[in-house]
């Protein structure tokens, strides 16, 4: 089983976690001011990289907290996890 390092609880089995989609997406402050393309981009357009992906996870059966992770989408390796609010760490592929 894959071990995911929770920034609070340490390495824990993956079935304790739930996936939360791409990280660092900021909701537009005034959605009514967005045109359809900008709002559509926010809702649906994702980077979907082949390589390092910043994504949200939640330690649902653990501390219950959301955190962000950099995961390699080819190898499925978790490179680093960090708390919500922290900037995306610079990591070379």
């Amino acid at each position, binding site marked *: 089983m894959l071990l995911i390092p929770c920034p*609070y609880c340490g390495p*824990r089995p993956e*079935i304790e976690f739930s996936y939360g989609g791409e990280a660092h997406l900021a909701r537009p402050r005034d959605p009514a001011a967005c045109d359809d393309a900008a709002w559509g981009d926010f809702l649906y357009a994702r980077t979907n990289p082949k390589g390092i992906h910043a994504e949200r996870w939640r330690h649902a*059966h*653990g*501390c*219950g*907290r959301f955190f962000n992770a950099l995961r390699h989408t080819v190898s499925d390796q978790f490179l680093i996890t960090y708390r919500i609010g922290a900037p995306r760490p610079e990591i070379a592929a």
Partner: protein
Amino acid sequence: MADLPRADPWRGLALPQLPGLLTLTPHGDAARLSLRGEAASLAPLGAALGLVLPTTPCRAATSGTRAALWLGPDEWLILTPPDDPVRDTLAAAIPAGAGALVDISHRQAALTISGPAATEVLNAGCPLDLDPCVFAVGMCTRTICGKASIVLWRQAMETFHFEVGRSFAAYAAGLLSAAARLAARRAG
């Protein structure tokens, strides 16, 4: 409203017992409080409880019959006897808008699981590494056991406190029974 007696969630369920290997004991009636608080208010909350709220992840603190289990960075599970008046003391100690206290006594049911086969039986449903180097005495966490969300607290090397949602009591008893049968077969 009539004050109805609480039904024992373990009543009528077969809890596995393996002489010399495994003992399962229903924890009985208890008060359970879900406490949420911010770092600045921990000292008065701890004082109201008579213990220091653990801030190290996955650690429990006890004082007499009271226990505070770290479940998250601002979340604790308080376990105490049902007649303990601490609920009101604690509620009064929470600064306005900076915490919450919810009585969840009836939500969960608990077992004490002990014996040399305790880790083996728990690991049948719980994916945590229960090696004492990783999950040491005094550590506690929310995790899963099969399909049920549980709170597990290692009280001694071979003694675990096992909290599960009360509607999962029959499921947990069945899962642990099946695991105990395997453990008994392995032990010969």
